[in-house]
C-alpha cells in the first residue's frame, strides 16, 4: 500500500494547479466527465476525501436521480428504454463511480441481450451488478452464477447431470476469475458438473436437484461433492483471481499496460481485504502511479465516456434514443457486448470507422441543426458568458475546456488561423462576429473534438 504522504506529494499541495489537475483526473476516471457543478464538491475537500466519497457511493444522496427516473416511466421490457435508463443514470447520478463500476462489471460478466432476448432480465442483472459492485467479490460472483440472464447467455439452463454443458464452467474461470492458463480441461469438465441443475424460471433462479450431479468432483486439486457455491468460493480464493481482477481494474481505471508492481499491490489488497472491491478501488485511486504523468491522458475514452463526457461538458441534458445508437456505432452497444469477453477497451476502440463516428458525433453535437435533431448548444453564448473577446483567448478557453490544454503549439496556431477567417476563407485580424462567429465557433469546437487528445482520458 502506498503511504499517504507519498501520494500527497505526487499530487501537490491543495489548491495548486497540479492538485486541481489531479482532482479533475480522478473525477474523470472515476466517472463520465463532469459539469462545473459536479466537479465543485470534490474541489472543496481533500484528495483523500474525494477518493472516499467516490468509493463509498452509498454515503452520497442520490434521491434526485431516483425521482427523475420515476418521472421518465421507463418500460424495462423495451430494449431501447433500458439503454436510455442507464444513460440517464450515467448523466445525472451523484455517484459517478457507482455507474462506472456497473459498466465495468457489465464488461466483465459480459452478457448480451441479442442472445438473452429479455431486456427485463438484462435490467435485473444490471441492478444486481450495481448493488454488489463495491462489495465482496464472492457475493457478486455467486449472484452472477445464479443470474437468469447469465444462465440463459451461457447455456447453464442446458447443463444437466447426464450431459453437462461446459459453457459457464469454462468462462467463469477464463474470463470471470482466474484467466487462461490457470486451469485444465479436466477442471472445466468437473466445474460444469458442479453447476448442473442451476437453472432459471420466469420467476428467477431455481435449483433443479433432479438435474444436479451430486457425485464427487475433483476441481483445481481438491475433491468433494462440490456445488456451484463451492466452486465460487474456491475460485474467489485463488491467487490468480486477485491478480486477474487487479489487472482488469487497472486497465479500466489507470493504465492500459499496468506495471507488475501496480498489479501486485492491488492484488494484495484483494486478498488482505477479504476480496473487497471497494478497497481495491480506493488503493488504485490513492496510489502515486495513478497520479503520475504516465497515467494522465493515457487511456482512450470508451464511447460511453466520450459521449456522456461531451454531453456534460456542454451541459446538453438530452438523452434521446439517438445517443445509444451513436455509441453503438462507435463500438459500444450497451447491453450487447460483442462477446462474453466484453469490450477489449483501450486501443481497440480506435479504428477508422469508429474514429469517423466520433468526429461525426462531435459535428452533430455542436451543429445548430443536424438531421431532425433540435438545437443542441450555443457556443456563441458560452463565449459571451466567458467574456471571450480575442481569437487567442477563445481558442485557449476551448482547448482548456475540452482537452485540458493538451495540444501542441502547432495545433493551437492552426486553430487560431481557422477561427480568424471569414466564410470565404479570407483572413481577418480580429474575432469574427454575428453569423460568421457562430459558424466559426461551431467549427472550432468540432475541430478540437477531433483532436487525438480529445479521445483520451
Amino acid at each position, binding site marked *: 500500500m502506498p503511504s499517504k504522504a507519498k501520494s500527497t506529494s505526487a499530487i501537490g499541495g491543495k489548491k495548486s494547479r497540479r492538485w486541481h489537475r489531479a482532482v479533475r483526473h480522478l473525477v474523470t476516471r472515476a466517472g463520465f466527465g463532469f459539469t462545473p457543478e459536479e466537479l465543485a464538491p470534490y474541489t472543496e475537500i481533500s484528495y483523500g476525501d474525494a477518493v472516499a466519497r467516490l468509493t463509498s457511493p452509498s454515503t452520497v444522496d442520490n434521491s434526485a436521480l431516483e425521482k427523475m427516473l420515476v418521472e421518465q416511466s421507463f418500460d424495462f421490457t423495451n430494449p431501447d428504454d433500458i439503454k436510455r435508463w442507464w444513460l440517464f443514470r450515467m448523466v445525472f447520478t451523484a455517484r459517478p463511480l457507482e455507474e462506472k463500476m456497473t459498466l465495468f462489471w457489465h464488461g466483465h460478466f459480459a452478457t448480451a441481450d441479442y442472445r438473452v432476448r429479455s431486456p427485463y432480465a438484462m435490467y435485473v442483472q444490471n441492478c444486481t451488478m450495481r448493488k454488489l459492485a463495491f462489495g465482496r467479490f464472492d457475493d457478486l460472483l455467486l449472484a452472477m452464477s445464479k443470474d437468469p440472464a447469465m444462465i440463459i447467455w451461457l*447455456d447453464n439452463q442446458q447443463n444437466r447431470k447426464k450431459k453437462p454443458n461446459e459453457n459457464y464452467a469454462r468462462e467463469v474461470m477464463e474470463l470471470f476469475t482466474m484467466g487462461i492458463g490457470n486451469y485444465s480441461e479436466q477442471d*472445466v469438465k468437473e466445474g460444469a458438473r458442479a453447476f448442473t441443475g442451476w437453472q432459471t424460471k420466469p420467476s428467477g433462479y431455481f435449483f433443479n436437484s433432479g438435474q444436479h450431479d451430486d457425485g464427487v468432483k475433483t476441481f483445481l486439486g481438491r475433491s468433494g461433492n462440490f456445488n456451484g457455491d463451492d466452486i465460487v468460493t474456491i475460485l474467489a480464493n485463488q491467487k490468480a483471481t486477485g491478480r486477474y481482477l487487479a489487472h482488469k481494474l487497472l486497465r479500466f481505471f489507470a493504465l492500459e499496460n499496468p506495471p507488475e508492481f501496480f498489479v501486485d499491490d492491488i492484488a494484495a489488497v484483494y486478498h488482505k481485504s477479504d476480496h473487497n472491491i471497494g478497497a481495491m478501488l480506493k488503493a488504485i485511486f490513492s496510489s502515486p502511479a495513478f497520479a503520475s504523468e504516465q497515467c494522465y491522458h493515457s487511456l482512450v475514452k470508451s464511447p460511453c465516456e466520450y459521449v456522456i463526457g461531451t454531453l456534460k461538458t456542454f451541459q446538453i441534458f438530452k438523452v434521446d434514443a439517438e445517443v445509444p445508437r451513436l455509441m453503438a*456505432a462507435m463500438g459500444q452497444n450497451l447491453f450487447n457486448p460483442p462477446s462474453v469477453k466484453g469490450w477489449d477497451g483501450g486501443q481497440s476502440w480506435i*479504428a*477508422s470507422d469508429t474514429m469517423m463516428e466520433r*468526429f461525426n458525433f462531435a459535428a452533430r453535437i455542436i451543429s445548430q441543426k443536424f438531421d431532425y435533431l433540435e438545437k443542441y448548444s450555443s457556443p456563441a453564448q458560452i463565449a459571451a458568458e466567458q467574456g471571450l473577446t480575442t481569437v487567442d483567448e477563445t481558442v485557449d478557453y476551448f482547448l482548456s475546456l475540452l482537452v485540458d490544454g493538451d495540444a*501542441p503549439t502547432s495545433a493551437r496556431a492552426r486553430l487560431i488561423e481557422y477561427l480568424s477567417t471569414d466564410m470565404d476563407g479570407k483572413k481577418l485580424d480580429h474575432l469574427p462576429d454575428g453569423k460568421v462567429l457562430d*459558424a466559426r465557433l461551431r467549427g472550432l469546437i468540432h*475541430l478540437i473534438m477531433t483532436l487525438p487528445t480529445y479521445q483520451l482520458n
Partner: protein
Amino acid sequence: MAKNQNTSSISRRDFLAGLVALGLLGRYQLDGMAANASAQVDAAVAAGRSILVIQLNGGNDGINTIIPYSNGAYYDARPKIAIKQTDVLKIDDHVGFHPALSEFAQFYNDRQLAVIQGVGYPEPNRSHFRSIEIWQTAQPDIIGDTGWLGRYLDYLSISAAAANPNMLAVNVDPLLPKSLLARKIVVPSVSDVQAFRFKVDPLYKADRALQLQAFGDIYNDFDDRRPIVDKLRKSGLEANRASEKLLDLVKGHKTTVKYPDGKLGSSLKFVAQMVSGGIGAKVYTLGYDGFDTHAGELRTQTSLLSGLGKSLRAFQEDLKQNNCDDKMLVLIFSEFGRRVAENGGGGTDHGTAAPCLVLGSGVKGGLYGEYPSLTSLDHGDLNHTIDFRTVYATIVDRWLGADSREVLGKTFENLDFC
C-alpha cells in the same frame, strides 16, 4: 523505449530492403531470394489478385458442416443433432454438405470450392479468444503482436507497385482483427460505408473544405511523443483518406444482383464494390457471428449456414458480372470445431479441428486432406490432420505470389487447391 523496440525487432525483410536502397545487395547475396523479392511482389500486385477472409465467430461445428454421413460413430455420438443420411448433400461415399449449404454443393460441383478437411494445430486451445488469436497471428507458441495478414502486408509494402500502402487491406468490421496488425501499415476498418464520411454542420456546408484542410494540417503536424497519440493521429488521417476514396468507388458500382438482407450480405456487397472498383487492396476481412452453439444447434447452424451460402452466391455472381471473379479467393474458417459427442442441450461444446473452405473461380475445387477419425479422439475431440498454416502458406505462395516464409517464419507444405 518504443524506438529501441523497433530497432531490435527489425525483420530480415526490412534489413534487406534497406540494403537494396543503398545498392549494397550485389555484394551481399544472402540467399538469392531477397534480390528478386521486390520484382516478385510487383508481379503479384500487378496480377490484381486478392483474398477475402471470413471468420465464423464462435466455433462452427465442422462435423455438421462437412458431414461423415457413412460413419456409424457420427450417429452414435449425436443422437439428437446428427443430420439424416438422406438429407446430406453428398460429395462422395463418405462425406457431404449440411442441407443448408446447397449453394456450396453447387460451388463444389462447379469445381470452385476446395474443402480442406481436419484443419487445426497442435495442442489445441479451447478458449474462443486464445484460439482466435492463434489463428489470427499464426503463432501458436507465443502471444504474437502481429497478424499473419499484417506480416504479409508489411512484406508487400517494399514493393513499388503497392503505391498506396494504406489501402492494401480493408477490414469490413467495426473491430480490427489481430490478423491485420502490421508494423508499417494501418489497415482501415469500415463497416458502413455510407456513414463513413467527415460531416460538418449542415447549415455551413461550405465550411467542410476549410475544416478538412485544418484537420489535415493539425493532424499532419500533431507532434507528440506518446505512442497512443501517434496511433490516434494515424487512424484519424487514414479515416479521412479512406473515406473519400471508398465513397467514390461505391458510387461507380453496377450490379443486378440482390444480396440477402443483413450484415453479411451488405458487407459482401461492399467488398464486391471495392474489388470491382479497382481499389487495389490485396486483403479483405470480415466476421460472421453466432456459431457458439452450446444449445439448440440444429436451428441456429442451419440458419447461419444458409445465410452464408446465399450471401456468397450473390457475391460470386456480382464479381462475375464485373469480370473480377477470377481475381478473388475466399477463405472461410472458424477458431475451432466442436466436440464429437453432443451435450445435453441439443448442442456441442468447444472442440478442435474442423474443415476450411476455399472458394473462387480460380480455385481448384475438390476435397483435400483426410477426415479425422471419429473414434481415435483426444479427450473427446478430433485430432487435426492438416496444420492451418499449410492453408495460409498455400494462399500466400500460390495465390498471392509472395513468400510464405516471410509471413509464417518457416516453411509449410503447399496444398494443391490454387
